[in-house]
């Protein structure tokens, strides 16, 4: 038997101790420490969560970029609301760095070096090896590495799904805002027509006879149509980007006096807005 390339067979080991020196006691001690730490952290999680929320959001995570993305969005909303940005504390940043180093540098490195070592020694099976402390840590690094390899695919897929959803929602909102601006411009044009005398091409106090100019009937955002009565107008805009989505605005006599769409969009105001499709 070559001691460099071969290990004890079960027959050779027989009933002898399969555990390396100090393995059981160290493993028990580690287990006790881990259990006490986890149980105590779990039971004080409220105070921990509060403390870390101030800085980063969570105590630690193996995917800190997800937390960072959430923090960036939250900071964007805070900036939009005029509130000061929530900057992660140095401790939180170091924790994130430690998570990255542990998960994506140390664990895979140890795992791959150990795997290469075993491959060179031609150790085909681990059944007959003694359970040792280095093996204990190697197993731990292996689990972390394999977990990351498995988890990274759904995490990346879910991330891309979220990004795609956000882009789609932003596109819908942008199109909706642009169509509201178009409708506002149409109403202003209608109001001009209504107040102008007939000698100047207006309606002389009536909306009847108003037609949409080509620049208003179709824009980059949507296609618009209008139905008018003397003191009432109904404008319908259908989105070009999202054909199933449309906006309908009804104006009565009071609404025709208002100059700004924003004033007319007040709930219960004289401009009655109705949305369909993705604009709901």
């Amino acid at each position, binding site marked *: 038997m070559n001691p460099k390339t071969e290990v004890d067979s*079960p027959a050779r*080991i027989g009933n002898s101790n*399969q*555990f390396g020196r100090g393995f*059981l006691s160290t*493993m*028990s001690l*580690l*287990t006790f420490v*881990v*259990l006490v730490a*986890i*149980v105590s*952290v*779990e*039971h004080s*999680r409220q105070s*921990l969560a509060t403390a870390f929320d101030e800085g980063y959001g*969570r*105590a*630690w*995570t*193996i995917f800190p970029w997800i937390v960072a993305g959430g923090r960036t969005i939250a900071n964007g909303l805070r900036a939009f609301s005029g509130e000061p940005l929530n900057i992660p504390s140095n401790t939180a940043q170091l924790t994130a760095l430690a998570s990255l180093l*542990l*998960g994506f540098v140390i664990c895979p490195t140890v795992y791959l070096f150990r795997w290469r070592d075993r491959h060179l020694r031609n150790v*085909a*099976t*681990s*059944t*007959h090896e003694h*359970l040792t402390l280095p093996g*204990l840590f190697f*197993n*731990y690094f292996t*689990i*972390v590495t394999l*977990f*990351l390899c498995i*988890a990274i695919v759904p995490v990346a897929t879910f991330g891309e799904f979220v990004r795609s959803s956000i882009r789609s929602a932003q596109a819908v909102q942008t199109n909706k805002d642009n169509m509201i601006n178009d409708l506002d411009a149409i109403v202003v044009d209608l109001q001009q027509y209504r107040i102008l005398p007939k000698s100047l091409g207006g309606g002389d106090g009536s909306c009847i006879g108003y037609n949409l100019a080509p620049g208003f009937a179709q824009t980059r955002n949507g296609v618009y149509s209008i139905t008018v009565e003397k003191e009432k107008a109904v404008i319908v805009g259908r989105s070009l980007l999202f054909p199933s989505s449309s906006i309908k605005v009804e104006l009565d006599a009071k609404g025709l006096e208002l100059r700004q769409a924003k004033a007319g969009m007040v709930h219960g105001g004289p401009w009655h807005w109705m949305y369909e499709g993705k604009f709901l």
Partner: protein
Amino acid sequence: MNGGNMYGSLVSIRWQWLLVSFCSLVLYHLLPSYILLSPQPFLGFRRMWTIAAWLVVGIAAVSYYVSQRSSKPTIVEPAIASTLYSLLMIVYLPAPESAPVYYRHLSFLPVPLILSFVTAFTSAGIGVWLKARKTTLGLDT
């Protein structure tokens, strides 16, 4: 590995492998889960089936590993250790707020314990059987 050995392994419990099984569950299942998942109540799991899946998969994997590492058939030890481990998780880890009422009822306690025992026993049994098969076929080096 014959039927006599298998029977012997079922009636005599080797405390070292019981300890190794329990420690393996804590170090290879609980600790990585705790570090890799966020430190939320019950590791961030919010639904009962995710907790059950987390326990069953972890217990099955660790029990299989223990049965593979032991030179003798080791089936009962991982099963007992898994039952203790499940009991520890249920008693000491705070339940998620969305957990149903029956989760906190004492009469529900045997369900996860029996599930853990059966899972570990089955997984370790499969491990022992596969190892015996490898030995029989001469694939074990």
